[in-house]
């Protein structure tokens, strides 16, 4: 198989397979959660559920001051690489074009040097997060093989993207093929691991906000 064959494979059939597994997988995961439902609540409500629920979805992007004070590293590094990952994913011009050709919707991207810098920061952030996971006692205690697996699966698309952009792997079709392949692995793994938090965290935050909101507290 030539590098070009490899690239065509990753861009063609593998991409379709990955997208299908990802989309179906996520739908199943969300259905598994939502169909469980909630028991009827007979207690007289003090507050609304929907508005506090939606507010909590937003508010958990900004930690409370106490958490920031006690865990500044988690907050700063965590926010940095999450934002970096999303920026690189959604605002890199070739990605925008891919999305446009797949879904038919597009938006303006960021200049390449900006995305490049963001990617570098994201890589550093992810490495720092891994070191933290290996050394901070609570994280180390909680971490399972899955946590390290999803770290790797998240790290590789960013790394291969960076290497391909800087032509650090040659020939280029191989570099690009590896990048696409790693993105496909990410998509396939996503519905079966805690990477689902990308979607379910919004559901979780909503429920949290709604449960507290009913009692008159904005959580």
């Amino acid at each position, binding site marked *: 198989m030539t590098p070009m064959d490899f690239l065509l494979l990753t861009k063609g059939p593998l991409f379709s397979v990955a997208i299908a597994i990802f989309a179906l997988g996520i739908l*199943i995961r969300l259905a598994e959660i939502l169909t469980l*439902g909630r028991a009827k609540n007979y*207690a007289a409500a003090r507050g609304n559920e929907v508005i506090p629920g939606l507010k909590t979805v937003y508010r958990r992007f900004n930690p409370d001051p106490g958490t920031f004070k006690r865990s500044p590293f988690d907050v700063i590094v965590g926010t940095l690489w999450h934002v970096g990952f999303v920026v690189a994913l959604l605002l890199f011009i070739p990605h925008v074009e891919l999305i446009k050709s797949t879904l038919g919707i597009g938006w303006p991207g960021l200049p390449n040097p900006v995305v490049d810098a963001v990617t570098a920061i994201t890589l550093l952030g992810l490495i720092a997060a891994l070191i933290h996971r290996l050394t901070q006692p609570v*994280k180390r205690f*909680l971490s399972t093989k899955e946590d390290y697996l999803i770290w790797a699966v998240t790290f590789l698309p960013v790394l291969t993207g960076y290497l391909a952009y800087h032509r650090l792997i040659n020939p280029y079709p191989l570099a690009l093929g590896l990048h696409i392949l790693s993105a496909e692995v990410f998509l396939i793994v996503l519905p079966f691991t805690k990477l*689902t938090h990308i979607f379910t965290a919004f*559901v979780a935050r909503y429920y*949290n906000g709604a449960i*507290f909101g009913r*009692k008159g507290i904005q959580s």
Partner: protein
Amino acid sequence: MTQGANSFSLTRGLNAWREEIDAPVASFFSSCVHCGLCAQACPFYVETGDPKYTPIHKLEPMRLLWEQEYTLWGKLKKAVKDRIDAQLGRQPRPLITDEMLEEWEPLLYDSCTMCGRCSMVCPVGNDIHYMIRKAREGMVASGHAPEGLIAASVRAVKTGSPMGLQWKTLEVQIKHVETATDLEVPIDKAGADYLVLLSSMEIINFPEYLEAITKIFDHAGVSWTLSRDCFEATNAGVQIGSKDIGAQLVQRVVDAAEQLGVKNVISPECGHAYTGIRWEGPNMIKRAYPFKVFHIIEVLDQLRAEGRIQTEGKEMDRLSMHDPCNLARKSGVVKQQRSLMDLVAGDFVDLEEHGEYQWCCGAGGGVSSNERAEELKLAAFKRKKAQIEEVEPERMVTMCATCRTQLEEGLEEFNMDIPVVGLTEMIADHLVEKEESEKP
């Protein structure tokens, strides 16, 4: 707590969990990325530094059940494992064992007050204390609840009080209050506006409370009554985590309220009694109440807002306040106690993290009824102590008998000379005396 240990089994425990797993629980377990930030929100972790006290870790057995039975991936993994076991002709290893639950019992009971602080900080939005409450259902059903809580539950079901306190004890106190105040303590007055409940701990440790509300309600002209059939507000079922016991106990309150035809029920200065009756009760008996439920602080603040409480003079020493988790974070009562403090406190300073972000005293959620948890209870108190040291108050004010006892004992343990007072009593101390002519 019906037929002794034989009626509990692992199967029953797992079934209880199956009943408890709902959409929020599934969304929470799906979202946890093991970031560990919940540990930083938990006084038991913060003060011991032991990672096993990380809140989300306390739910690991229930999470295993969820993963295996409520996710496609988990079901697939189980099918493959079963296949392999069958091929090799060996018994499948059980996912959750009694030994495992025994190991988790101290995590779910001794080192968690269900204060809910972790639920406020989790970045993915997991309401962890919501799940701990549910997890305890399975612990009770499988026979893995702490002895102290089992004993309290048995006493509550048998005698009506978790401390085994009887009406005649309360009656003596009522007589005492009547003599001291020259006022009547109304008993079984049908059609009163408010049915007042008490907690055994209050009756024993803080008799000032009953005297205080007797004075305040007379002052404000509130129509109220006690019920001979049901004076106990606390609910051991809520603490141990048994909806069956909880429902039995709450039904007594509902029966008494309905029999007397009261419009409102007042929960005393006790945290879990309030959340038990206010939020859990209707769901445990599976119907809405024909009356409203208030914490005494809500009622006092309402009276204040209506101008029915006239006070004179202020406390001039430096006061700070401990918000009970059940009242503030878990029930949305945060402003009321502060408006009341404004009435009577001349030098009030809030703890830095207060209201919905307050730190638990370390004794709630059944920890104080669980002798095995003594050491952890004191360890967790150190967070509160640190908060108190920051603002250096001369006295602390609170509105929960468990918090108050914990603060008193904890402060004494660390040789800190800071008395603790109940807010209701403090208000009662400042009521404007009635003119002689107004007295009945």
